[in-house]
C-alpha cells in the first residue's frame, strides 16, 4: 500500500478567509484502497480542506495532485427534491437519444449502479419522498456514477439512524476494497475507530496528529482534537424525584413531522431523554411544550409554567447575532423582577449576569460587549445554555444542546445540564445524538414517526434495541 504513489497528494495547503486562516500548511496523502478519517473540532478547517481537495476552493498556496477523478459528498445534501432519483444521479449527464433524454437507458444505468454497490434504492422514487438515509444513498450514488478513484465524504452520517450508518459504511468499505481512496471528514469518533485505517486530526487549520487507527483510541483522538484533557463531566448524584411535567395524549403538527398521541413524564431531579432520528416529531413536541404551536391533549406543569428553553437553532431562535453578549444575556429574561424595574431595564444587573454566564460557562470572548456574531459556534452555544440555566429554572427543555459544537464545549454543556439536574431541575432532553442521550438521560423515550416507540430506564437500557426502534423495526 505505501509503496504505490498516493492517489491524492496535498502539500503545503494554506487558505485564509478575511478574518481567519482556515487551513494553515497542511500535508496529506491519501492512498488507493484506504479509508482515511479526517477529524477535528468545528472550525478546525476540515470542510475547507475537503473543498480544496475536491477543487471547489482554490488554495492561497500549496499544491493538490490527484490521480483520477475526485468525488465529494457534501455535509448538506445537494439534491433536487422535485426530481426522481435517476434524474438527480444523472443530472447534466443524461444519456441522450438524439435531442431527447433516453429515459430507459438512464433508469437502467442508475439501477445497475445501485445494485453493483449494494445500495437499495428505487430509481423512480421522488427524492423529496425519501427518508434521510435513502437521500444520503442518492447523494453517494451520484458521486459513484462518475466512477471516482478518490471519494471525499464530508460528515456523511450526520443525519442517519444507527442502522443506516451501518449500511452506509458497508458500502464504503466495499468501495475501498475495490481500490477507491476514501477520505471521511467527521467528528464522530466511534465511526473513526470502527471503519477507518488511518486518522488525521486537525486543529486550528493544522494537522496535529496522524495515527494508525488500530494503534489509537477514542480518548487519544479526542485529546488531540481538543489539545489537552477534556473537562471533567459532573457526577450524577442521587436526587429525590417529584413530578414536574405530565404530557398526555399530545397531538400537534401536520402529517409530516407531527406527533400523534404522546404520553410523557419528566420529574424534578431527572433528565428525560428523547432518542430518535431527526424528523420524527421532535420539533412538534418541543414547540408544543414551549407553547409555540397549538396542540390537543394535555401538557401540565405541577408547579407553574416556568420553563427555560435551549432552542434547536441558536442562530434563529435563541440568540440575536447582532447584539452583544450583554444584550443577549437578557433575552427571554427581560420580564424577570430583578431585571425589570417598571419600564426600565436594569443594565447593571444585565451586565453582571452576562459576566457571570461568561465566567461559569467558559464563554471565550474579548469582552461582554462584542457582538455574538463574532463568537464561534461553541461559545455561542455556551452563552445560550448559560442564559437558560442562570436563573436556576425548575424545568428545562434542551433541544440538541450540543449540536454542531466542539467536543470541549459539548462536555461543558453536558456537565452543566447534569449539575442542574442534581440541583433538582426537571430536564427534557431532545437529541439526535444517541451518545448524548445515553450519557445524560435518567429515562429514555424513543420517538419514531410522531409516537413513543419505547420507554427505558437508565438501568435497563439496551443500545441495540433502541437503535432498532429508532429505525422503525421492533
Amino acid at each position, binding site marked *: 500500500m505505501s509503496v504505490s504513489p498516493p492517489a491524492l497528494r496535498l502539500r503545503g495547503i494554506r487558505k485564509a478567509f*478575511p478574518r*481567519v486562516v482556515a487551513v494553515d500548511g497542511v500535508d496529506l496523502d491519501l492512498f488507493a484502497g484506504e479509508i482515511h478519517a479526517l477529524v477535528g473540532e468545528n472550525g478546525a478547517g476540515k470542510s*475547507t480542506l475537503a473543498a480544496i481537495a475536491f477543487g471547489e476552493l482554490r488554495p492561497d498556496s500549496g499544491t493538490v495532485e490527484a490521480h483520477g477523478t475526485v468525488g465529494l459528498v457534501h455535509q448538506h445534501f445537494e439534491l433536487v427534491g422535485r426530481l426522481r432519483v435517476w434524474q438527480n444521479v444523472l443530472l447534466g449527464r443524461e444519456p441522450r437519444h438524439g435531442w431527447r433524454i433516453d429515459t430507459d437507458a438512464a433508469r437502467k444505468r442508475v439501477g445497475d449502479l445501485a445494485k453493483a454497490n449494494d445500495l437499495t434504492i428505487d430509481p423512480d422514487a421522488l427524492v423529496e419522498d425519501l427518508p434521510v438515509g435513502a437521500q444520503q444513498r442518492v447523494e453517494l450514488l451520484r458521486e459513484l456514477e462518475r466512477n471516482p478513484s478518490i471519494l471525499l465524504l464530508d460528515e456523511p452520517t450526520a443525519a442517519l439512524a444507527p442502522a443506516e450508518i451501518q449500511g452506509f459504511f458497508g458500502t464504503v468499505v466495499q468501495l475501498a476494497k475495490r481500490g477507491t481512496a476514501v477520505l471521511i471528514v467527521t467528528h464522530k469518533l466511534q465511526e473513526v475507530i470502527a471503519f477507518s485505517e488511518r486518522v488525521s486530526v486537525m486543529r486550528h487549520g493544522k494537522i496535529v496528529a496522524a495515527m494508525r487507527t488500530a494503534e489509537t483510541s477514542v480518548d487519544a483522538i479526542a485529546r488531540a482534537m481538543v489539545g489537552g484533557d477534556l473537562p471533567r463531566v459532573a457526577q450524577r448524584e442521587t436526587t429525590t424525584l417529584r413530578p414536574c411535567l405530565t404530557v398526555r395524549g399530545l397531538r400537534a403538527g401536520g402529517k409530516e413531522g407531527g406527533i400523534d398521541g404522546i404520553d410523557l413524564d419528566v420529574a424534578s431531579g431527572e433528565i428525560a431523554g428523547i432518542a430518535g432520528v431527526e424528523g420524527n416529531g421532535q420539533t412538534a413536541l418541543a414547540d408544543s411544550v*414551549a407553547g*409555540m404551536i397549538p396542540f390537543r391533549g394535555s401538557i401540565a406543569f405541577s408547579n407553574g409554567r416556568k420553563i427555560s428553553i435551549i*432552542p434547536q437553532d441558536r442562530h434563529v*431562535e435563541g440568540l440575536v447575532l447582532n447584539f452583544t453578549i450583554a444584550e443577549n444575556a437578557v433575552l*427571554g429574561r427581560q420580564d424577570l423582577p430583578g431585571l425589570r424595574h417598571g419600564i*426600565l431595564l436594569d443594565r447593571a444587573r444585565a451586565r453582571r449576569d452576562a459576566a457571570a454566564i461568561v465566567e461559569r460557562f467558559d464563554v471565550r470572548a474579548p469582552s461582554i460587549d462584542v457582538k455574538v456574531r463574532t463568537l464561534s459556534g461553541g461559545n455561542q452555544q455556551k452563552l445560550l445554555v448559560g442564559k437558560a440555566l442562570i436563573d436556576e429554572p425548575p424545568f428545562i427543555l434542551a433541544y440538541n444542546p450540543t449540536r454542531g459544537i466542539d467536543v470541549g464545549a459539548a462536555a461543558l454543556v453536558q456537565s452543566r445540564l447534569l449539575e442542574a439536574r442534581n440541583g433538582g431541575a426537571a430536564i427534557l432532553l431532545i437529541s439526535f445524538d444517541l451518545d448524548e442521550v445515553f450519557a445524560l438521560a435518567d429515562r429514555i423515550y424513543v420517538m419514531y414517526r410522531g409516537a413513543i416507540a419505547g420507554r427505558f430506564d437508565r438501568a435497563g437500557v439496551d443500545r441495540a434495541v433502541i437503535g432498532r426502534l429508532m429505525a422503525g423495526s421492533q
Partner: protein
Amino acid sequence: MRRATSFISGPLGAIVLVVALMSVAMLVAGTSPIDGFSALIVGSLGGRSQIGETLVATSALLFPSLGVALAFRAGLFNIGAEGQLLVGAMLAGAFGGFVSAPPVVAVVVMLVLGAIGGGFWGAIAGWMKARLRANEIISTLMLNFVAQYLTLFVVTQWLLGPSATGAETPWLPNNYWLPTLIPHTRLSIGILVALAIAAALQFLFTRTVLGYEMRVAGEAPEAARRNGINLSRITWLSLALSGAIAGVGGATIVTGELHRFNTQLSPGYGYIAIAVALVGDLDPIKVCIASFFFGILEAGGLAMQASAQVPKDAIHVIEGLIILVLAARRYVAQRSERVEEAAASS
C-alpha cells in the same frame, strides 16, 4: 478588489460618489457644478437666515425620520410617515383654526392631537399586520394615499378657511404660533421638540424593556417570539409610536411654520425620511445629523434653483442617488459579512 469595495462602502466613498453624480446631474441641467455647489452651500449655510431655513427643513424631516427609524428598528418597514404626518397635521390645524383656548393649552393640545392623529394612522397598519398579517410595506404605503385624499376631503368639506385657496384651514391666531427660536428666521422651537424625541428614543432603545423588545423583534423575530416577546403588541405599538412621532412633526409644521394646515404642506418629507433614517443607521443621534444633511440639501436646493438656475428637482434626483448608494453599501457590507461567516464556520 477588496480595497475598492471598502472604499465605495465607506461613508467618505458614498459622499464622493454622490458629489460626482450630482455634478453630472448639474452638467446635464446645463450649469457649472462649481456654481451649483457654491449656491447650495451658501444658500444653506451662508448666513443666519440661510441656516434658519436649513433648520426648518431639518426639523420637518427629523420627526418623520425618527418615526421611520423607530419602526425600522422594530423590523417594520413603515413607508407611511407621509400619511401619518398629514393626519396629525390636519387634526392640529383643525383645532388651531377653529377652537379657542388659552394659547399655551392650545399649542400643547395641537401637538398632542398631532401625536394622536399620526399614532392612530400608524396603528391601523399595525393592527392590520398583527391581526390580518397584512404586509406593512403595502398597507402603510396605501394609507398614504388614503390620508392624502381623506385630508383633502375633510378640509374642503368642513375645515376650509375663509380666504383659503386650495385645501387650507383658517390661519391660527398669532398666539397659537410656536415661538421663534432664532429671531428673524422662520425656525420655531419645534426643532427642540424633535431633539427631545430623539433623546427619548435613545433612552427607549438603551434603557427600557420595551425598547429592548423592539430591537429583538427587529433583529430576530423568531428569537423574539421564542423568548416571551409578544410580537403582535410590539408590531402595533411600534407602528403607533412611529406614526405618533411623524404626526407631532406634522403638528409642528402647522403651529411652527405654516400657521395653518394645507393638504400639500409636505413636499414628501415622509418619503425622504426613509432615506434619512437609513443614512442615519436608524440610530436616533445619527438620524439627527442625517436630517441636518438632508436639510442642507432641501434648503440649499431651493437656493441653487434661485441663484444657479438648477431645478430644485435635481435635489430629488440626488436624494434618490443617495438611497441607491446606500443600498449598494448595505449590500456590499452584507455580502462580505456572509463570506466571513461562511469562512468562520467551515
